[in-house]
């Protein structure tokens, strides 16, 4: 291959090619602009075909056998959006295309020509069969009220709509530009990093059909797995590398889905059909694949003094009910206004694609109590002093939106952890000298890991939330033993209940305060990490064990951000499988 991933298909085009490219681009942009303007404020269905073959930007990035298939299927599953009609290409054609590209080098133009030659006629054939049925979706309201439909009872479609169908066909080609496996010796985890992209082409029908490049998107992702483990999956047991690879693939595929939805041609748009207080009704629904809680900007097209038309945002909404617009009649979904401007009927909603998860950071304070005591194992003796004071830390949460599952808007599965510090005094006694000259530590690290449920209620830009979390809290003391680092941790299991008040700063970010209660009772459970080994141990001095607990109020700041992409998404695999199952539901 003679192209690199940084400047895609970096080749020196001839003057003729430059002229051709400019011509094609102008034509494409004028077409796009025309489509955009004539259908201002309304999404027009597009049809998509894909090449089920993976282009490699470098031979070095070649994937092990079986990985490529997994990567392609995962990407296709994620890009299979309801807003598109799919032009399924015949298997034999796909195979022929795979064979053609295998082990060959292409320039961008050669690739475009190859796709036009090999796949163009097949896509046109599919479009041809489907065109009249698909054109039905493009009928305007006036056309549905035209005499031709009312009286002649015909389909009512015109050649114009059929041509729109033929001209709204796109194709994407997946490519892989990076694949790396990292196995550090001092780490039990293996990490796979990949960078995958999609090149989107637009089919220009006519006497000589051809594909013009629209854009290319790319995303990188990473996945980790325990290199000493194997993983049981639906399709059998897989190695750690493959598990890490799959995890990375899911992260990337989800990112690419969001990026595809964010391409202006594919972004959902709809006019406001009605407004009732802070609820807007709009004509999008299941057919376009909208989901509860998805954010949309609201605004209007504004003509500036220089004649240019610009979309001016004046607030945003989140979807509150999804209509089944496959049913006859006027089916409208609703959304509630978070930030409401001066809105009226006819203004436009524009999709703001985001991953269905928010990343929250919550700096917080809570009390930690320690009643003096002793921890003793066969090697260590740790003496704890009395302590009653605050612990300062921060929660780092992933809030996964599960509204589609619970059918309750703004409901989230929370996975997170806390990192904090408390000025706890402790000393590890490993030699006789330690008894004479104790080396007392004054800081202990507090780490939490938890999962739970969060529900949020918006009242305009303000929101109230409650969350219940179950988790493990660990107080960690670090010291040295025999000149080697050792950490001794006391573990406890408990729950947290929080109430929060947030303010939506913008469509992606909320800022607020929260207060809650955390109940982590004293438990005599200990873990020691020494010489890269972490083991659970019993306290031999359990009669005099320290009581470390946190039964206290907690309060802090709250900030969350809706993510457009996430390179390392530990929940991606679960989310993908969940969304696949939801898609298969009737």
């Amino acid at each position, binding site marked *: 291959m003679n192209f690199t991933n940084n400047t895609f298909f970096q080749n020196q085009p001839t003057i003729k090619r430059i002229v051709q490219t400019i011509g094609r681009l102008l034509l494409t942009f004028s077409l796009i602009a025309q489509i955009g303007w004539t259908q*201002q*404020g*309304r999404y027009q269905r597009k049809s998509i075909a894909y090449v089920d073959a993976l282009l490699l930007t470098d031979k070095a990035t070649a994937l092990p056998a079986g990985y490529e298939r997994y990567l392609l299927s995962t990407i296709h599953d994620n890009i299979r959006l309801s807003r598109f009609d799919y032009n399924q290409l015949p298997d034999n054609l796909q195979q022929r295309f795979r064979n053609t590209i295998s082990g060959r080098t292409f320039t961008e133009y050669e690739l475009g020509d190859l796709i036009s030659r090999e796949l163009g006629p097949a896509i*046109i054939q599919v*479009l*041809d*069969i489907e*065109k*009249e049925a698909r054109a039905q979706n493009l009928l*305007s*309201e*006036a056309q549905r*009220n*035209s*005499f*031709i439909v*009312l*009286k*002649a009872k*015909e*389909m*009512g*479609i*015109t*050649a*114009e709509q*059929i*041509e729109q169908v*033929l001209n709204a066909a796109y194709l994407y080609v997946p490519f892989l530009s990076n694949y790396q496996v990292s196995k550090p010796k001092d780490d039990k985890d293996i990490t796979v990093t990949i960078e995958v992209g999609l090149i989107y082409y637009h089919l220009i029908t006519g006497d000589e059909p051809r594909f013009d490049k629209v854009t290319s998107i790319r995303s990188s992702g990473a996945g980790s797995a325990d290199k000493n483990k194997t993983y049981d999956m639906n399709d059998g047991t897989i190695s750690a590398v493959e598990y890490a690879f799959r995890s990375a693939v899911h992260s990337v595929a989800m990112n690419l889905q969001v990026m595809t939805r964010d391409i202006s041609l594919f972004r959902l748009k709809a*006019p406001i*059909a009605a*407004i009732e207080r802070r609820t807007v009704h709009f*004509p999008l629904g299941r057919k376009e694949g909208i989901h509860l809680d998805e954010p949309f900007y609201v605004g*209007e*097209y*504004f*003509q500036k003094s220089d004649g240019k*038309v610009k979309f*001016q945002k004046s607030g945003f909404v989140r979807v509150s009910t999804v209509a089944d617009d496959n049913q006859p009649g*006027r089916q409208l979904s609703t959304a509630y206004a978070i930030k409401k401007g*001066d*809105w*009226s*009927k*006819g*203004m*436009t909603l524009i999709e703001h694609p985001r991953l269905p998860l928010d990343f929250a950071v919550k700096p917080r304070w809570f009390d930690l109590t320690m009643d003096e005591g002793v921890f003793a194992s066969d090697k260590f003796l740790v003496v704890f002093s009395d302590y009653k004071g605050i612990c300062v830390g921060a929660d780092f949460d992933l809030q996964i939106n599960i509204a589609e599952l619970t059918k309750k808007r703004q409901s989230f599965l929370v996975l997170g952890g806390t990192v904090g510090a408390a000025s706890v005094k402790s000393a590890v006694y490993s030699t006789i000298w330690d008894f004479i000259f104790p080396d007392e530590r004054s800081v202990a690290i507090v780490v939490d890991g938890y999962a739970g449920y969060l529900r949020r209620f918006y009242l305009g830009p303000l929101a109230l939330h409650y969350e219940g979390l179950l988790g493990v809290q660990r107080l960690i003391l670090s010291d040295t033993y025999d000149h080697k680092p050792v950490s001794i941790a006391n573990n406890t299991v408990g729950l947290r209940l929080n109430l929060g008040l947030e303010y939506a700063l913008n469509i992606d970010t909320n800022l607020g305060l929260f207060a809650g209660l955390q109940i982590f009772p004293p438990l005599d459970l200990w873990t020691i990490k020494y010489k890269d080994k972490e083991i659970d141990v019993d306290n031999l001095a359990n009669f005099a064990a320290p009581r470390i607990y946190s039964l206290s109020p907690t309060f802090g700041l709250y900030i969350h951000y809706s993510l457009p992409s996430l390179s390392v998404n530990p929940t991606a695999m679960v989310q993908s499988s969940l969304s696949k199952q939801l898609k298969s539901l009737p």
Partner: protein
Amino acid sequence: MLKLRAIFTILTMVTFVLGAKAKSNLPISREAVILETSSPSEILIKAVGYGTGSKKAEELDLRANIDARKAAVWFLLFSGSDPLLTTEAERANFAKIQEQFFEPANLKSFICWEADYYDSRLRLDEQKLKIEKSLKINKTLLLDNLVQRGIIQAPQAIAAIVGMPTIMVLPEKQGDRAPLELLQTYPNLKKGAEVIESFLTARQFTVIVPEQQQALNELSSVHFNLQGESEDYSYILALSIGSDIYVTYNVKVESRRLGTSTVKKGIVACRAFETTTARLLGTETGYSQERPAADAVVIEEAMNDAASKVLDRIVNYWKLDCARGVQYKLVVNINQTFEPQAAETIIDHFVDLVKKMAKNYQENAVADYTYDVLLWCDPALYRTSSDVYRFLRQNYKGSGVLQKVSVNRKLILLNIVAE
């Protein structure tokens, strides 16, 4: 005196301020376009509306909607090739009630459908919104309302005076083939005739269906033959020219391939003529959208487009013509046994009779032995062509004998033969 002057000044200023502030109900926008004639009474229009004078989006939206409705109605009343208000008198009458007429509540009664969504919506500045939306207006209701208000004359009123015109619809002649033969041979032409006839009957014109007319002609012919008499050709001619207006049309269906589908576009041209003078009253071409549909569908769509406009043209012509009186065509043929000078005297005599009888007249041809003239007579005195013939018969005192060749609705053919 000073006090009075001050009061007067204040009153004048208040009146001026109130007058300036009083908002006109007339549309700001006058932009509209007919998308389709959905049925003989319903017109689908795309109209532009402007919302101004407020910073609130909802208010601007409401005002723009109202303005779009006004623009659509305005367009039907005043714009396009065949507005409802055609004469100066009608426009002047309407001007007196236009503020009241364009009250939003009044306009709503003419709108039978309004799109839920705008075709486009553009904010032009803080206080100006432009929308484009589709509306369906019931033109018949609009027309009835104008008649009720006395703005325009009801077609029925015209009918009461001179009768509604009788119209015959025929396909355009192709080569040597007669229109009736074409109608029987080509279903597309028949479909075209059906659509125009549907429009005509919906508007209460008297329609002469050519096939039926021919059947009647054939029946008469058989009747005469049975009696052993020769056919009365003049009667057949009278039947044939039994219409005041005839409409000819041609139909074309263009098709092309779009993938594996054939899309068709219907193109029809409609021409209306005054029967007696062959004067062209109006020509319109109608186009259908290109559709993957049967010929009949695209023909109907194209014909809807053309027929509506042509019929508007006919109504306008009829209204204007009625104001001049009832029109007749008189052709007097003088037997060539008369000396040219005698024939000239006879013609002079007829000219005098025409001057006495007609409100208005126009000579088409004055030859040595032929006098061809168009007459506009007072409908109160000469309601039918028989009345005209009777007047001529009773008042002709010249040489020779006045003989009737044929008298039908519009055409009076007379012969002067030697005694």
